[in-house]
């Protein structure tokens, strides 16, 4: 190990001597991570000094941290010096030239999901000019947003255009040293979204990363920051139901949400990264830190997630309920199949008076997968009258998968009430029999039952997402029966 480390360091150093700066426009960084890499990254992005400082500070913190091992997942250790931390947009010549060159399996999935033809090409990473008319999208989107005063742009752009907001809020919810992956992200984040909803504004449309131009190249260390000023409202959609082709194995994203008085943020995610093949080979490692701070009175945050992709998922969208009467919600469907492993859940930290939270988590495991709910509900001494309700249900499909529940409940307030319940069951023979008897084939029957199982969560999703999510489960569960 020591030798390889040294070799890598040697390599990096050597390249530095040769003056890599001239090459930066067009190339991908050599694998490896050190302060020079971060300086280079910051330079390419032409970031102001304060960002570089911030990144370096995070990097130094990261060096002192140890990779967490408590999650109920098992995977070979990641060699952080074997990853390239910057990659310029791909040249067209390197991409598949037409849909004919794309994995037919992927195309079959698109078909089942009913994805429009022109979008398929973009999703598969095919080099086609103007896959769908980005100019028109830009105008139809940008005009009403600008009129409303909403800022919705790549975070790298926000660093230049709105440094005062970035300085104020970046890292205010997830500090650079929060955890191992958050620190790594803070040091090397590639890009992401910045959303700012001014006081009293109800965002005129649902904001979606899927449609944001250049979203395709946010890279593996995505960073999202949403600030909802007093009395504002925004619904934000992340990801899309179609499986995305991606070369990066490690994804360590950070999402921060700041919610002020009377504001509401609804954050919906559909995550369907490549889960690896049926033997558990390949697949994305998805290590995400998502946290919302309900700072203001009567503020509300709602996380809804449908997680079907990634080989390893490690994700706990959390709410810090600081403001009086603030509300946190978490609705989750996590589906694992084949050799996927998911350890996901939420944290509800009740600090203010009369804060309320609801957690509905549905885990579905099939094949040889492992699916864990891990959650924390905490009441501080000042959380008078706070309430939480938690329900975690697991559904097992097949006898070689695992479903786990690790709820942590901590209370320091006598007037706080928490109720937690969890059940585990399987698709029962009776249910199957009933469906079969009515001429429904087994695969469809399972999908119907699973959809019913997840209904409570799907109804929280924006409409078009909900329809897609249903289909997505169907596709993901393929081959789990019979």
């Amino acid at each position: 190990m020591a030798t390889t480390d040294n070799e890598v360091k040697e390599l990096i150093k050597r390249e530095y001597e040769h003056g890599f700066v001239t090459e930066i426009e067009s190339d991908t960084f050599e694998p490896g991570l050190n302060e020079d890499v971060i300086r280079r990254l910051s330079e390419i992005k032409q970031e102001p000094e304060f960002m570089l400082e911030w990144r370096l500070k995070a990097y130094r913190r990261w060096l002192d941290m140890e990779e967490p091992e408590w999650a109920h997942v098992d995977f070979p250790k990641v060699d952080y010096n074997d990853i390239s931390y910057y990659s310029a947009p791909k040249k067209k010549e390197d991409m598949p030239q037409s849909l004919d060159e794309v994995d037919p399996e992927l195309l079959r999935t698109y078909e089942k999901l009913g994805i429009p033809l022109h979008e398929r090409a973009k999703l598969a990473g095919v080099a086609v000019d103007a896959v769908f008319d980005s100019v028109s999208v830009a105008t139809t989107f940008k005009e009403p947003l600008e009129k409303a005063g909403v800022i919705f742009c790549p975070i790298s752009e926000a660093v230049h255009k709105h440094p005062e907001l970035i300085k104020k809020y970046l890292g205010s919810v997830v500090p650079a040293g929060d955890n191992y992956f958050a620190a790594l992200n803070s040091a090397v984040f590639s890009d992401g979204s910045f959303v700012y909803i001014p006081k009293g504004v109800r965002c005129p449309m649902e904001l979606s990363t899927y449609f944001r131009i250049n979203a395709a190249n946010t890279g593996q260390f995505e960073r999202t920051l949403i600030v909802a000023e007093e009395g504002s409202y925004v619904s934000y959609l992340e990801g899309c139901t179609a499986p995305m082709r991606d070369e990066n194995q490690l994804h360590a994203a950070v999402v921060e949400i700041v919610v002020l008085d009377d504001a509401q943020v609804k954050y919906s995610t559909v995550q369907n990264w490549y889960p690896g093949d049926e033997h558990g080979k390949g697949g994305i490692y998805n290590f995400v830190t998502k946290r919302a701070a309900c700072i203001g009175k009567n503020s509300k945050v709602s996380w809804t997630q449908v997680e079907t992709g990634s080989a390893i998922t490690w994700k706990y969208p959390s709410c810090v309920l600081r403001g009086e009467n603030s509300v946190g919600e978490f609705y989750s469907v996590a589906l694992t199949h084949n050799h996927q492993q998911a350890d996901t859940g939420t944290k509800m930290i009740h600090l203010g008076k009369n804060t309320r939270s609801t957690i509905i988590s549905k885990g579905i495991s099939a094949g040889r997968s492992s699916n864990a709910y891990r959650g924390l509900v905490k009441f501080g001494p000042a959380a008078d009258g706070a309430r939480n309700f938690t329900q975690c249900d697991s559904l097992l499909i097949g006898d070689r998968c695992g479903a786990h529940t690790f709820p942590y409940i901590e209370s320091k307030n006598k007037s706080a009430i928490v109720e937690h319940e969890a059940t585990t069951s399987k698709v029962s023979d009776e249910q199957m029999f009933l469906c079969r008897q009515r001429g429904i084939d087994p695969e469809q029957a399972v999908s119907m039952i699973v959809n019913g199982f997840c209904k409570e969560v799907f109804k929280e999703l924006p409409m078009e997402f909900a329809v897609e999510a249903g289909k997505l489960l169907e596709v993901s569960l393929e081959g789990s029966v019979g």
Partner: protein
Amino acid sequence: MKQAPMLSSAFLHPAGQTLPEPLLALRKQRASLLVDMPLPTRKTENWKYSSKYLKLTDEMAISLPAEGKAGNSLAVSGYKVVFRNGILIPEASDYPDMDGITIQSFSDLSNEEADVLALQLGSTLDHDQAQFARLNGARFDDGLLVRLDADAVLDQPLFIIHETAADTSGSAFPRIFVEAGANSRITLVEEYTSSGDAPAFVNTVTEFTLADGANVTSIRLNMEGESVQHIGATGVVQNHSSRFESHCVGFGGPLRRHDLQVRLVGEEAETKLNGVVVTQGKQHYDNHTSIDHVAANCNSEETYRNIAADQSHAIFNGRIHIHQDAQKSFADMNNKNLLLNNGAEIDTKPELEIYADDVKCAHGATIGQLDEESIFYLLSRGIGRRDANVLLTMAFINELVSQIPLEVVRDTAQIRLNEFFEQTFQEI
């Protein structure tokens, strides 16, 4: 990374040499594994909430001598074995010599018998989860072996009174091993009491193996005083059609920890775990239970209730693990908590780990306070607020206390509970 504190080497020197040779050898071997044993910290998952209460000093490392007097509060209505500071006291004990039933002090075992026992000691426990059972393995000065042959039935409950006489600082390491043969039956009561107010450390291990069809009822009453830190572990292995029932009643102290591990290795085994904990003042109590469904068709049922008053801290961690192929398992875990004052803390973690699909598992946990409407109902019928509080709090745990199958234990627990209510609800 800060170095985790280690168990002081002062704890590695056992005192009593009266044990038979094979057990001395076992103890020595176990002690060698303890060198540089890290003590739990906040980062140790299964000690997360309790590590700050663990305060072991070198003065506490020496074994307390088997003398001094500690009064037990239990009016014994059956056979009796008395341990004083971890040493069995034959003069104070009164147990039968029956066909098919062996009740014997470890010190009285022949080398051959001790050889057999040495292989069994510790076999029921997962020492990675119950770290301090290792320490007991290295330090036990004496112990009690109970063997029931097939079909043997102990006609009266066996009371084991553990007295800790802490006139000076020190520790006690009592150990009990119960082997219940096929279709045998026993009720065993363990009571932990103490006298004296020097800081003492009690580290216990109790093990049960249940052969096919065996039926064991275990009752554990923890009533030690304010100077005693107690870390106990109970390991249970159940074979085909066996039935184990456990009732634990615990009163808080500076540190109270009980690990209860049940492994269902034979089909159609059944286990039922009940527990009640009350804490007040600055007391602490931590119950960690785990039930492993290794074989198919087993049932487990677990109900724990905690009440925390003043600035006390009660913890429950229940784990149900359904192994692969343990189909048709039925597991139900329920934990309810009553937090009586701001300043008190309750932490609960009901875990499920499931690797088989045809199972029915559920757990529920709540933390709350007395229901205002119920209090109002009682007030409207002329019952004072204090009495209403006591009544409702009592009802909260009575469901479990009333299930204890021995009246004498129920009564003893009730007296202590009444004291608790007196103190907790006096100011209202």
